[in-house]
């Protein structure tokens, strides 16, 4: 930025002279204000030293440093990046990794249904997700938060996430899991200053972990606590890591970047249900293609009473809560 400042003031001093004002031309006149140059030089050197230091301590390779945004990469670049990542993960975790880059399926818009009449608050979805999506165990990241409400209201401020009874479901309470709602009008993608997060054509809101600068503006913008931050290097035990990954999904992340639920993009783009849907013991979770009138989710919307969280915020989530009696 300081170099830009330099050239702009240069441009303006020159134009001043060109106008033929009262300023006398000095044959050996300096092109810019020396004080600016001095402070610029100081700032630049300090910045360069800082940057080199940052690169050194952030332990990233030069290819990682120069990696482009996923949406701007050519096919060859993507292949190279995927190859590099697979090598890196293999070295780190000792397993053969697959970093897929499957494109969105045609005529697909994913929707999710959650039957809060059925949910018993057992949290098997939470831990199934953790295993499938390579979330950090320490510090702990859970994409899904199961809220427990007392019968009679849905006041978020009176909800409890840390319930730990002997058995669930408990009498007098009901349960509502919340995760990224994959909004059609997402506030998070609007605010990202580098467009590291966006909505894919099949409706999944994704993050390019190698492009994210870690400013956490999207976390401030999300009304559903859908986004989580790696405050340090994620801690995943080597034997529990899942090697079937997608570039935009569950591949192991690095420190100081944002991550979130991706509807198990590595599974759904191959036609398989997300892990949370499969793991739920009571079948409270439903998933499908909103554009297919015969999918479970379309039928739910047509026949059941559905609602979405915080509708007044106009985020248009694709996560529908419903009651099946």
């Amino acid at each position: 930025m300081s170099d830009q400042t330099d050239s702009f003031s240069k441009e303006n001093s020159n134009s001043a002279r060109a106008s033929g004002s009262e300023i006398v031309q000095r044959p050996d006149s300096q092109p810019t204000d020396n004080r600016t140059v001095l402070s610029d030089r100081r700032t630049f050197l300090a910045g360069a030293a800082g940057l080199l230091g940052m690169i050194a301590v952030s332990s990233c390779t030069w290819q990682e440093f120069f990696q482009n945004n996923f949406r701007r990469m050519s096919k060859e670049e993507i292949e190279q990046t995927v190859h590099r990542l697979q090598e890196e993960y293999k070295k780190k975790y000792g397993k053969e990794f697959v970093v897929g880059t499957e494109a969105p399926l045609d005529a697909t818009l994913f929707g999710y249904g959650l039957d809060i009449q059925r949910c018993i608050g057992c949290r098997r979805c939470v831990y199934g997700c953790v295993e499938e999506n390579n979330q950090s165990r320490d510090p702990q990241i859970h994409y899904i938060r199961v809220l427990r409400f007392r019968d009679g209201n849905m006041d978020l401020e009176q909800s409890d996430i840390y319930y730990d009874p002997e058995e669930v479901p408990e009498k007098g309470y009901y349960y509502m899991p919340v995760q990224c709602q994959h909004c059609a009008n997402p506030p998070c993608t609007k605010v990202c200053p580098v467009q590291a997060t966006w909505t894919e054509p099949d409706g999944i809101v994704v993050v390019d972990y190698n492009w994210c600068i870690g400013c956490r503006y999207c976390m401030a913008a999300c009304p559903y606590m859908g986004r989580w931050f790696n405050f340090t290097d994620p801690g995943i035990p080597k034997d529990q890591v899942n090697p079937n990954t997608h570039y935009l999904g569950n591949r192991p992340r690095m420190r100081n970047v944002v991550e979130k639920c991706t509807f198990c993009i590595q599974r759904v783009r191959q036609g398989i249900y997300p892990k949370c849907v499969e793991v739920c013991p009571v079948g409270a979770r439903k998933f499908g293609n909103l554009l297919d009138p015969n999918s479970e989710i379309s039928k739910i919307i047509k026949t059941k009473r559905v609602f979405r969280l915080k509708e007044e915020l106009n985020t248009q989530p694709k996560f529908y809560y419903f009651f099946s009696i």
Partner: protein
Amino acid sequence: MKGKIVIPKVALLFFALGLTGLVLGLGTGSIRAQSQDMGAALEADTLDETQASKLESEREFPVPLTPLPKTITPCRACHGPEKDFPVNFKRREDLLVHKNLKLNHGGVRVWCLDCHNPDDRNYLLPLSDGKPIDFEHSYLLCGKCHGTKFRDWRSGIHGRRTGKWNGEKTYYRCVTCHDPHSPKFKPIEPMPPPRRPWTPKETKARH
């Protein structure tokens, strides 16, 4: 004099416009926000309506053969023509055999012979067409009383699903999850709650 004033002001104006244009043009890059018109999308039909309704009304259903207990049949071994016990339609608790079964289904409304076929114990009661229902298709019998659940289960709204969301799915029979003699789910132990974040005291203790 005037000319000398105009030029820097005009230059400034162009410079400001140019800077704005440069920043907006370069800054936004070639990536545009992607949006989906969900309303229109939902109206699009990908499957023929008549085809769909035909599938649902079929009696045969793509259900995997979950292994049934070996002792489930032949009931005819005891309730067969060789040892033909007289059928007693009165509800009673003390059965000579099957003492391990605790019946807790619908209270006073339902007991053994409301589901089990008294004429042939290898089968369950028939639907209105008179054909006895075998244990493989027990869901048809459940659907007699639990029609709404049956409809939901058929559409995929009720019950657990695994497999492919756009292809072959695994449906589970009612009895796979619900014990027909005592269908209510027992409570289970939940998995551990999430770790609480650090309070300011804990933050200070850390550093």
